[in-house]
């Protein structure tokens, strides 16, 4: 399973902000940590801001602060801002029997991926990371 670069950056950023809910984290800090270009990161954070997961503060002490509910926001909520998991294939007619059977297996994989991402909240993900560190 591979996610797009923007999606991964959004997930890491959201988790960084959620891990420090009271603190404003600068864009430069995230960009440096994840080796992202400021331009790319700005676009990603813009989407998180529009989804009201983060709020931005301007000025020298500015940065981003987490504004969602880490116990409620799931990985799928963040991923869905950037890409669709299990997007239906473009309709092509006529579909052959083997293609339809393959579609069924691919749909099964997509459903499992969606259920996994949809069941893991940001808080659970942070707990998992803490356990791995310990």
């Amino acid at each position, binding site marked *: 399973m591979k996610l797009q670069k923007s999606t991964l950056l959004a997930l890491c950023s959201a988790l960084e902000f959620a891990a420090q809910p009271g603190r404003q984290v600068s864009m430069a800090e995230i960009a440096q940590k994840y080796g992202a270009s400021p331009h790319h990161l700005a676009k990603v954070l813009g989407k998180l801001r529009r989804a009201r997961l983060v709020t931005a503060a301007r000025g020298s002490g500015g940065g981003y602060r987490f504004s969602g509910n880490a116990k409620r926001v799931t990985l799928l909520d963040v991923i869905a801002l950037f890409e669709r998991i299990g997007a239906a294939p473009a309709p092509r007619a006529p579909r052959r029997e083997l293609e339809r059977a393959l579609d069924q297996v691919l749909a099964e994989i997509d459903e499992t991926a969606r*259920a996994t991402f949809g069941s*893991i909240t940001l*808080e*659970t993900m942070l*707990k*998992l990371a803490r356990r791995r560190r310990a």
Partner: protein
Amino acid sequence: MIHLNKIRAARRRDLAQVVEIDARITGLRKPAYWAGILRRYGGRDPGRFFLVCVQGDRVQGYVVGEVRDWEFGSPPCGWVFGIGVRPETRLRGTGTRLLDAICESFRGRGVDKVRTLLPRDNALVLAFFRSQGMMAAAFTALERDL
């Protein structure tokens, strides 16, 4: 008088409340099923557990599970196959306490792994088990129409 939550083995007088909690969650009343669960899991079998979290006489939640040996090719492990908490008392740690209690009972039977199985569209309960540190097991559930 303040009643603190307590976890204990389910009793016959708890059954009506367990049926009510389950019905509120699933939309189905299953009194015969729960009577059977109490008979099979509320007795003296040391590997079977039917626990309730109570505040005074009020049941806040329940959990059911057992230790199974070598099923599905797995070494003995604990299985949780039912957990429910009154919707209005969620997010107060009742589910966590019930799961902790049954895991402790499993440990007492010498197992070091707990498993469960649930529909993948049950996001609420999936998220709960995930929050308790449970990860995808190395098993895949399969089915077909008969």
